[in-house]
């Protein structure tokens, strides 16, 4: 099959199988995303981050934990240490590369926990209505009313410092907005004719929520998650900075800034480099989120 016919096969108006239809709609979304330059920049950065995390042992020029006190606080461009060294003489570039693993780990865990919890609570509340809705949404309100970082702090203080607890704390404060979005979407969807139609075929609430409402909520949630990722990375970095997230000597970016803070006037690069890394990844998530919104928004589908 030549390249041109593969493209035609993917762009056909009359797919010949279930797989073909799915691939075709996926490809159209990809074309749509590809035409958005900024989203592709964001995607490129994130792919680079994932690759850096996977191939960290090969990419990193030094051991991220190896100390060299004779060569501490070396400036940018020092031979062998492109981004300099920190207060214990550890290579900052290597620590950044290894730190991408921690960042991705946090991002992945939060992205698995918070939106799923929010989706569950929001769609059940929205579809069931009545007293279930009232109870679930008041619980959501209570969580929304807490200042995010303070609740996370309290949670970490109760469970002890560490990445997993930081992730739990962040998820605990991150799910309510997703529940709200999912509920709002569900309220507009549940009275639609296609939901009435499937109810008239005898479908029960579980099938309707999982098969018919979730697919329509998920796209707006994905967009919201990518846009929130920046905030989640910053919250994780914030917890690390306060000493409640990742613990030294772990090369978590927020913790690295925290360590560099003491020398920020004389040796600015020690805190700035991890700061730039957080900034770049946050920006990449925001750019991708914006692009995904254009592709995934069901209201624009088919126009």
């Amino acid at each position: 099959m030549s390249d041109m016919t593969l493209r035609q096969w993917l762009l056909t108006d009359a797919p010949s199988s279930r797989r073909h239809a799915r691939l075709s709609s996926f490809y159209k979304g990809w074309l749509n995303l590809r035409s958005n330059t900024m989203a592709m920049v964001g995607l490129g950065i994130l792919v680079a981050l994932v690759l850096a995390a996977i191939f960290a042992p090969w990419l990193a020029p030094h051991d991220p934990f190896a100390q060299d006190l004779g060569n501490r606080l070396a400036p940018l461009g020092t031979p062998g240490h492109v981004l300099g060294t920190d207060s214990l003489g550890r290579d900052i570039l290597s620590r950044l590369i290894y730190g991408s693993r921690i960042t991705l780990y946090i991002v992945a865990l939060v992205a698995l926990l918070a939106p799923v919890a929010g989706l569950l609570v929001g769609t059940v509340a929205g579809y069931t209505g009545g007293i279930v809705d009232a109870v679930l949404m008041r619980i959501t309100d209570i969580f929304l009313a807490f200042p995010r970082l303070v609740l996370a702090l309290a949670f970490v203080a109760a469970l002890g410092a560490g990445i997993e607890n930081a992730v739990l704390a962040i998820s605990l404060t991150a799910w309510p907005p997703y529940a709200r979005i999912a509920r709002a979407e569900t309220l507009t969807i549940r009275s639609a004719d296609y939901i009435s139609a499937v109810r008239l075929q005898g479908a029960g609430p579980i099938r309707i929520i999982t098969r018919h409402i979730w697919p329509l909520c998920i796209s707006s949630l994905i967009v919201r998650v990518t846009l929130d990722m920046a905030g989640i990375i910053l919250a994780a970095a914030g917890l690390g900075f306060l000493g409640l997230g990742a613990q030294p000597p772990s090369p978590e970016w927020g913790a690295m800034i925290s360590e560099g803070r003491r020398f920020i006037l004389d040796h600015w690069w020690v805190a700035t480099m991890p700061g730039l890394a957080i900034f770049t990844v946050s920006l990449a998530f925001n750019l991708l989120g914006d692009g995904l919104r254009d592709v995934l928004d069901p209201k624009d589908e088919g126009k």
Partner: protein
Amino acid sequence: MSVALRIEGLDVWFGDGRDRVDAVKEAGFEVATGESFGLVGESGSGKSTILRAITGLARDWSGLIEVEGKRIEGARRDRAFFKTVQMVFQDPYASLHPRHTVDQVLSETLSLHKLGDVDARVVRLLDDVGLGAKFRFRYPHQLSGGQRQRVAIARALAGEPDILLLDEPTSALDVSVQAEILNLLTDLRAEHGLTYLMVSHDLPVIGHMCDRLAVMKDGRIVEVMGVEALRRGEAREDYSRDLLAASVGA
């Protein structure tokens, strides 16, 4: 002749207390098995609400609804009901899930009705409504309005119902497509021996499709008459005559 659908003293309302709106008041009519019965009236006269009360989509109602001699209560309907009665909605742009292919829509319906041999049945349903297998894996946005309504009709027919409730099935379509859909519905009725209860504000459509009709105004049934009487312009009530005159004059 047996009665497919009997409705007596039907009241349907929305809201409670001071917000209560009575959409249908003391409506009553019978539809014989195999008959095609029309409900006409202007917008807001309660004709669609009667269909929604029958299917349980409108929860608050009182009176008697009997489907094939079985009395129906409340808003819950059992599996047997969904196997007997199906509905085609007004707007084909709103009645198909935007993320489901035609295949997903029909095979889910078939599995909900516990019918086996899904693949062959989906193809046959598409053939029945004049779409053919090449439309099987398309998404709704790849279909025209008329094609979507054909899919909606195929979905309604999937469970092999006896009674089809048609809620203005052509009013969202343009005129040439309307005629195709109406002819399809006529053919399907002959083929499957269906009973139709059809709502429309369009008297010519009712005249073409139905044997008898009821005229509704402000939630009440003003008059029930045969379609022959409609054609001869022999409406007994003033309102029906006005409606008739308005539709002929247009």
